[in-house]
């Protein structure tokens, strides 16, 4: 269907998500991912991604396309795109960071990790637990002890919100 003259000139790849959706992208776009690059170098043009779900994959392809055409002139545009890209819920960010980690896209990985870190740095441990879906495995006594030992880090008010 997409076999225009353009696609004949450019090498294309097919990415298959964990929920079996297929996406056709230019090879030059895909190889920003180390994982995809390695497969391409081994001669693959069909890349199954069993750890990446469609929802995250669509966003990541968007990101890769945007960043593949990076020039000096669209620097601002990319910054705006990135800002918008990370403006989402924690669960979406975790989904994206897992995908970026699996795909080995280091610039995206750094951006996502930094975003998450910035958003949790002033939060309380309780809020962090909820955000990361972690069950506290300390007994109340243990927790009290560890808090006491780090008392200086508990000065002031913390952000209890989950967004």
């Amino acid at each position: 269907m997409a076999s225009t003259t353009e696609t004949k000139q450019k090498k294309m790849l097919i990415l298959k998500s964990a929920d079996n959706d297929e996406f056709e992208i230019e090879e030059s776009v895909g190889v920003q991912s180390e994982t995809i690059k390695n497969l391409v170098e081994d001669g693959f043009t069909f890349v199954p991604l069993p750890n990446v779900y469609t929802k995250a994959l669509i966003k990541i392809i968007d990101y890769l396309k945007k960043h593949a055409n990076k020039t000096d002139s669209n620097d601002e545009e990319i910054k705006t795109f990135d800002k918008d890209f990370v403006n989402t819920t924690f669960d979406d960010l975790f989904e994206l960071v897992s995908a970026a980690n699996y795909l080995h896209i280091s610039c995206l990985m750094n951006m996502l990790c930094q975003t998450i870190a910035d958003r949790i740095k002033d939060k309380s441990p309780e809020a962090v637990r909820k955000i990361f879906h972690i069950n506290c495995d300390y007994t109340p006594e243990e927790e009290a002890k560890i808090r006491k030992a780090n008392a200086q880090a508990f000065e002031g008010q913390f952000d209890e919100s989950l967004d």
Partner: protein
Amino acid sequence: MEKHQCFDDIVFEILTWLPAKSLMRFNSVSKAWNTLIRHNLNFAKSHIARSQARPTGSRLLFELDVVPDEEEYPATKEKNRGLEEFPLQQLAPHHYFYRKEMQICSNHCNGLVCLYSVKDTQVYLFNVTTGEIKALPFSMNEHPFCLGFDLVTEKYKLLHVFEKNNEDNRITKMRILTLGTKYSSWRILSMPSVISSSRCIYLKGVLYWAHFSRSYIFYFDLREEEFGVFSLPQEYSYFALLNDMQTALRGKLVMNCFNWKFEDTDWIYDELKRSFTKLKNSANREEEMFVFLESEKIDKSEKAHVLVTTPSVMNIVRDSTSLV
């Protein structure tokens, strides 16, 4: 969730981007997080590397010993609480010390500094960012230390200048101790006669000293454990003063060099090319301090006794001071 199977790696990555103070708080999130933050040496290394690469995250400005009035800081009444216990203790809740009781007795290095207790002559290692404090296994007279980090073995090393009575003469000597190794002991160094215990700067595995009326900068390579010298820029070679703040700010050795007429300019030393470049528009000090304070939002006092430092993670402190 199966999609979170490699989530441990991701948590590791995310937490390396956090300030040390947040990490101290997140110890209490879960046992796994506590293990990662406090006991994983790779994590500490990644965190330090990350912190030093970030423009705003890499430096902290702290005041240590400005305590004008006891009433004002009731917290300091607890000042001795944390000091008696071995090993690590938090000093709660502020980084205040009475100058008469506790003094800074070394340069800063990776966010650590040595403190000297006047009362019992005990020397402590203090993590300025986190407030952790640890007694070193010796007490000492009032002479200051130089604290450095060997980038290859990843060990902290202490240099100590001391005076020794030799029949009628007093001779000055220098010795070195590697922290965090089981059987380390002080070793006497042969040192250039002019190096005194005066203020030094640590930067990237090397300690630097400047001395009045010397047209050289002296340095000590913490890996090779050897001294060396290099000359000041030709036109300004009377003597130099090292600029602690600018050095921390730029990650390059910055010094204020004087000529014979006492005219001065700021220079940046490139340790790889072994060359100087003139520092353009040296910012005024107040502005610099303001930048520091803004970037880290910490308490400021009017007359800040400042210490520029990089945030370091606590387990580096612990591991490198696990002296037996």
